[in-house]
């Protein structure tokens, strides 16, 4: 069923059209969006099964053959990413139905939400560099719309900052694609892979750096991340979860696809650069989080620090490194999204995102505290949760390659993450609830007494926490699937791992 590979794009786009047509009827619109993400989840599962059974699924639009026509491909990596996207999309939309800091129900919300998913899905299944650019633009436009939707001045300010840096990023990508096309004569990933393997690296390497730089902007790597902490925290809870869970990861996916698959024949120096960029990304992100007291800002800075881990995995430049990166990505998307959603519930119950105003939630909501602990410990990397295996695989590969400094930075960042997580735990859950400041006493201050309307929120958080625990307890099938997927990437032929294959 090669048409399955179209579904990550077509299903959300169809949902976007339907929800746009139903603008006057909020109930029907909401139902359509929920059904649409449900269908996307089903299609993503079917796609993953198909890839597992038959190997990469591909289709050529208009039946033009590969190097000339537009190709859509889902290999193991792409299918896994599509499934992650569908999970995050469905869960955040479910959360949006609750009363925990939902996005304002503007008519444009659900269509933009679906277009964003279509953009993300498109980047994961495209087999063509120019279409990658187009999907990046689609998701940039949808993200800008979602950022500006609230209409408050601080949100518009955030949108402008997001716009300026991200647009410069996509323009870099466009120029880079033009150069790469001029140098190799191809845009199709398969054809580019062959051209890169055949030709002298010097003929395309200088041009590869330009799109890579663009992907680093999108991923929020050091020192190009300034747009992220300037904008993310102005988003309402479910949208922040969607952004934090998916958008920067799309940048990482693009870097992984370029460096570990299409241009795996790149000289080592370029992996080296990515690896060394990962070190300050991890540390600066974690330190920025340590400064802040606003839950959203803490979590936004942690997005950056987690991007550092992912870049580290790409920078290793081996097959096991790529597989560890994807596992880390999956774990991080689940845990991160959940932490943001929990923060939104904390806001609903405590009346503020600022930790100095929260407190007493452990006594009032022990279940929420448990959910937070699961995600926070997964984030830190405590066994037996998913983060432990992710960090184990990543750091083991780092040490096998004798990259002591990188491993030390990764472990240090783990401690800094623990600091932030314990800060949230102590302030929001453990300490006594501070006396309510009357000048700031909002209606949410009473929420502890009347907690109705949080059912969907708890369901969403519970699903993600369950997935995190499941991934921690049964990592084996996922790891073996990802190892097999990494075996299909270009990096497997160029730099097979010294550690996992046995031979150095």
């Amino acid at each position, binding site marked *: 069923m090669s048409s399955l590979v179209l579904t990550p794009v077509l299903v959300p786009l169809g949902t976007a059209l339907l929800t746009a047509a139903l603008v006057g009827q909020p109930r029907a619109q909401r139902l359509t969006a929920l059904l649409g993400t449900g269908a996307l989840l089903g299609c993503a599962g079917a796609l993953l099964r198909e890839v597992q059974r038959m190997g990469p699924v591909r289709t050529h639009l208009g039946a033009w053959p590969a190097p000339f026509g537009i190709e859509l491909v889902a290999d193991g990596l792409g299918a896994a990413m599509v499934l992650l996207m569908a999970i995050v999309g469905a869960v955040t939309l479910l959360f949006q139905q609750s009363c925990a800091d939902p996005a304002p129900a503007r008519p444009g919300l659900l269509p933009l939400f679906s277009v964003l998913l279509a953009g993300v899905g498109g980047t994961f299944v495209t087999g063509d560099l120019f279409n990658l650019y187009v999907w990046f633009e689609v998701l940039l436009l949808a993200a*800008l719309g979602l950022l500006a939707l609230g209409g408050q001045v*601080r949100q*518009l300010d955030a949108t*402008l900052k997001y716009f300026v840096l991200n647009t410069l990023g996509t323009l870099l990508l466009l120029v880079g694609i033009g150069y790469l096309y001029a140098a190799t004569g191809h845009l199709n990933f398969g054809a580019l892979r062959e051209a890169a393997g055949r030709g002298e690296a010097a003929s395309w390497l200088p041009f590869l750096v330009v799109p890579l730089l663009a992907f680093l902007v999108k991923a929020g790597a050091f020192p190009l991340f300034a747009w992220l902490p300037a904008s993310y925290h102005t988003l309402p809870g479910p949208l922040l979860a969607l952004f934090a869970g998916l958008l920067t990861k799309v940048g990482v996916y693009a870097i992984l696809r370029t460096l570990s698959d299409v241009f795996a024949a790149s000289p080592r120096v370029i992996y080296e650069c990515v690896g060394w960029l990962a070190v300050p990304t991890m540390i600066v992100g974690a330190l920025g989080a340590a400064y802040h007291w606003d839950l959203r800002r803490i979590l936004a800075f942690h997005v950056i620090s987690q991007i550092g881990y992912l870049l580290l995995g790409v920078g290793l430049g081996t097959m096991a490194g790529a597989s560890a990166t994807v596992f880390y990505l999956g774990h991080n998307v689940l845990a991160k999204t959940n932490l943001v959603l929990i923060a939104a519930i904390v806001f609903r119950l405590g009346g503020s995102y600022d930790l100095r105003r929260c407190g007493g939630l452990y006594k009032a909501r022990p279940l929420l505290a448990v959910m937070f602990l699961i995600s926070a410990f997964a984030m830190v990397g405590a066994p037996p949760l998913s983060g432990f295996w992710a960090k184990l695989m990543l750091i083991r590969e780092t040490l096998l390659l004798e990259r002591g400094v990188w491993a030390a930075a990764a472990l240090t960042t783990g401690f800094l993450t623990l600091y932030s997580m314990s800060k949230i735990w102590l302030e929001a859950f453990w300490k006594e609830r501070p006396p309510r400041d009357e000048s700031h006493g909002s209606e949410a201050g009473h929420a502890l007494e009347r907690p109705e309307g949080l059912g969907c929120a708890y369901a969403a958080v519970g699903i993600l926490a369950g997935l995190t625990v499941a991934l921690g307890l049964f990592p084996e099938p996922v790891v073996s699937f990802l190892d097999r997927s990494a075996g299909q990437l270009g990096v497997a032929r160029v730099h097979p791992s010294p550690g996992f294959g046995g031979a150095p």
Partner: protein
Amino acid sequence: MLVVACAVGVSLTAGVYLTSSRDLLRCVIGISLIGVSANLAMFAAGRSTTASAPPVVLEGARQLPVDAANPLPQALVLTAIVISFALTCFSLVLALVLQQRTGISDADALRRSEPPPCPDGKPPLEGEC
């Protein structure tokens, strides 16, 4: 060829100059100028400026003439132009609305989303010290 190269250079210079300005509207217009230079660079990648024949298969011939331009980058640029048009519209409206609602046109002074720290160095509590 030289003309296109100069055009890329000039529009890029003008774009970077405007973008580094602190005025919001200038900054946004600068970005769209950088976009123009990116489009021109992409256009030049397809030999469109050195080729002498249009990318049309002539009557009776089975393939393009040897010195024909490559039509693909032209199609790509067209896509990019459409996208940048949408982005430019959006960003202009955004900059104008921000200026109207805050009365600030200086990018450095616009710190609504990231308020500066309190005098004691701590992060502000819900936007105020």
